[in-house]
């Protein structure tokens, strides 16, 4: 028994256990303090903020694996996050609109035909972009199972095709970063168009209402999503910790440090990059699918190139090449960001000029990024290493 445990992955990686324990305690604490399941100290909207933060932590560890461990500075992973959000958003919007339409048509004396119902749903959803036809990509929107499959398949396939083309041509370094930026820019520009089939710049909205659970209050739904996000983060963390440990981790880090040398050892570097790129894209898609029902709305601005750059900034500030660093970076910076931009931070009156944090937060973030890059290349997570080594 004892022997069996000592051979398990977690035993050999106690930091994973520590992280899971900390996450478990945090989750329990928030649940007990929440309005939905506890004593109501933490507001529902703050529970949603925390749940969204967990999703951002999940995409941050994906970013850390692809960049910090494998050395691919992808500046396009938020595109996968957004695709995951759109995929689940389509079902949420369709099913909810269908419910509303069916109820209102049921009041008529003549029962509505399926065509009438479909037209009415189309009108409701696509009226804002002057259309009522269902575009082809909505073909499976009525099926939760299929849309959930798309959360995984669409980011995975996009990453597979994009990565195959890029890695096969041995595009690396800054050129690859630019290429990934172009990918996310192209996707966001496409989605901004009214005839994209995804409601243009209106995006998808009302996603916080879960079809079939109309009577359940948001205070409860928020906790369910919060717990779901925590579970996803825990699983993602364990998965990635496993991937970057052992021999796979060795090869992946070796590719980061000297990919040409790895080729001469007989490893097909491109397959490894493709594997890591695609796996992290899939996890990013899942993170997005959990995030947007808590945000309530998704629109093309979410996957603007800058979002993916922020992601890299979080990971850099948190500390590349250590998963907990990415979690710290994403949680710390994104929460601080909503505090500053949400008017939480008091403005500073200098007499001749008032520093409004809503405007100046980005400048502060920029300076912090430069300072971390120059003076603390290991980020906040590096502090842990320092403290552990001092003991």
């Amino acid at each position, binding site marked *: 028994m004892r022997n069996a445990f000592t051979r398990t992955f977690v035993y050999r990686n106690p930091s994973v256990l520590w992280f899971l324990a900390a996450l478990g305690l945090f989750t329990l604490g928030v649940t007990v303090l929440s309005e939905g399941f506890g004593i109501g100290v933490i507001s529902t909207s703050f529970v949603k903020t925390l749940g969204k933060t967990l999703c951002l932590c999940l995409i941050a560890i994906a970013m850390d694996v692809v960049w910090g461990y494998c050395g691919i500075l992808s500046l396009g992973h938020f595109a996968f996050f957004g695709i995951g959000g759109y995929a689940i958003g389509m079902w949420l919007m369709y099913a909810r609109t269908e419910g509303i339409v069916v109820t209102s048509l049921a009041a008529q004396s003549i029962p509505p035909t399926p065509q009438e119902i479909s037209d009415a749903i189309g009108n409701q959803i696509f009226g804002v972009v002057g259309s009522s036809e269902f575009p082809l990509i909505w073909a499976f929107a009525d099926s939760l199972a299929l849309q959930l499959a798309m959360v995984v398949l669409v980011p995975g396939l996009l990453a597979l095709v994009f990565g195959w083309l890029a890695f096969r041509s041995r595009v690396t370094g800054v050129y690859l970063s630019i290429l990934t930026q172009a990918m996310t820019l192209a996707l966001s520009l496409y989605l901004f168009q009214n005839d994209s089939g995804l409601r243009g710049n209106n995006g998808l909205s009302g996603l916080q209402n879960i079809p079939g659970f109309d009577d359940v209050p948001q205070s409860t739904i928020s906790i369910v999503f919060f717990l779901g996000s925590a579970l996803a983060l825990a699983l993602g963390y364990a998965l990635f910790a496993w*991937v970057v440990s*052992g*021999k*796979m981790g*060795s*090869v992946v*880090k*070796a590719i980061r*440090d*000297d990919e*040409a*040398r790895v*080729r*001469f*050892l*007989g*490893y*097909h*570097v491109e*397959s*490894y990059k493709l*594997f890591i790129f695609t796996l992290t894209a899939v996890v990013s898609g899942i993170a997005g699918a959990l995030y947007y029902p808590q945000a309530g709305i998704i629109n093309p601005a979410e996957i603007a190139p800058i979002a993916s750059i922020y992601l890299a900034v979080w990971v850099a500030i948190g500390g590349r090449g250590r998963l907990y660093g990415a979690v710290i970076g994403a949680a710390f910076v994104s929460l601080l960001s909503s505090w500053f931009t949400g008017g939480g931070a008091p403005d500073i009156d200098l007499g001749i000029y008032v520093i409004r944090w809503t405007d100046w937060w980005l400048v502060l973030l920029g300076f912090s990024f430069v300072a971390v890059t120059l003076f603390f290349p290991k980020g906040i997570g590096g502090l842990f290493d320092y403290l552990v080594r001092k003991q």
Partner: protein
Amino acid sequence: MTLLEVSGVSVSFDGFRAINNLSIQIGEPELRAVIGPNGAGKTTFMDIITGKTRPDEGRVLWGEKNISLLGLSESQIAMEGIGRKFQKPTVFEDQTVRENLAMSLKNPRGPLAVLLHRKTAEGAARIEEIAEEIGLTEHLARRAGVLSHGQKQWLEIGMLLAQDPRLLLVDEPAAGMTTAEREHTTDLLRRAAQTRAVVVVEHDMEFVRRLDCKVTVLHEGSVLAEGSLDHVTSDQTVIDVYLGRKDA
């Protein structure tokens, strides 16, 4: 038998002929030293065999079936059984000596096999054996980055041995080594060459003398002379272009 046959190979960089109609044959087992002045094309010769540089013309044939290496990628050539040590020691400094060796061990190289790989007793024993051979037993758990220059050279030779290749290409292994380290290195290479082909590029004549093997002299991208060390060092053209220049 002939393991590697390079014939009529030429390569130019921006019009400059670095390798010029070069032909060399390597047997199995064999220990071969390649010498020549700086810029003679010794490293480029290894680049061509390992797929890093594509020649403009010529053939590179390998093994019993005489397959051409020119159509293969770097990783495929490595999997064919050709290992290489670079002129500048390149080990993975962030990882331990053991991890460096484990990564090089002859095992399946696909992502799935590597992901599901479990440490085996044979693998661990093989790592111990190689560490013993390269004198790094005490250092297995240390980061490769903290090793001395000579130890990094040995680690890289150890990584080569771990791959268990049929042909080892070793580019200037003794650079930056003390006399004692050099002697250890020659012993290592000679032992390795008992069962396989080893090609060593080296500048240092004393080192080459200790290797005690057939010598090929490269000059301006082609073979100038070939034979025992005494034979080539008494060759007048070799004295003129190489030894003569060195003395001057």
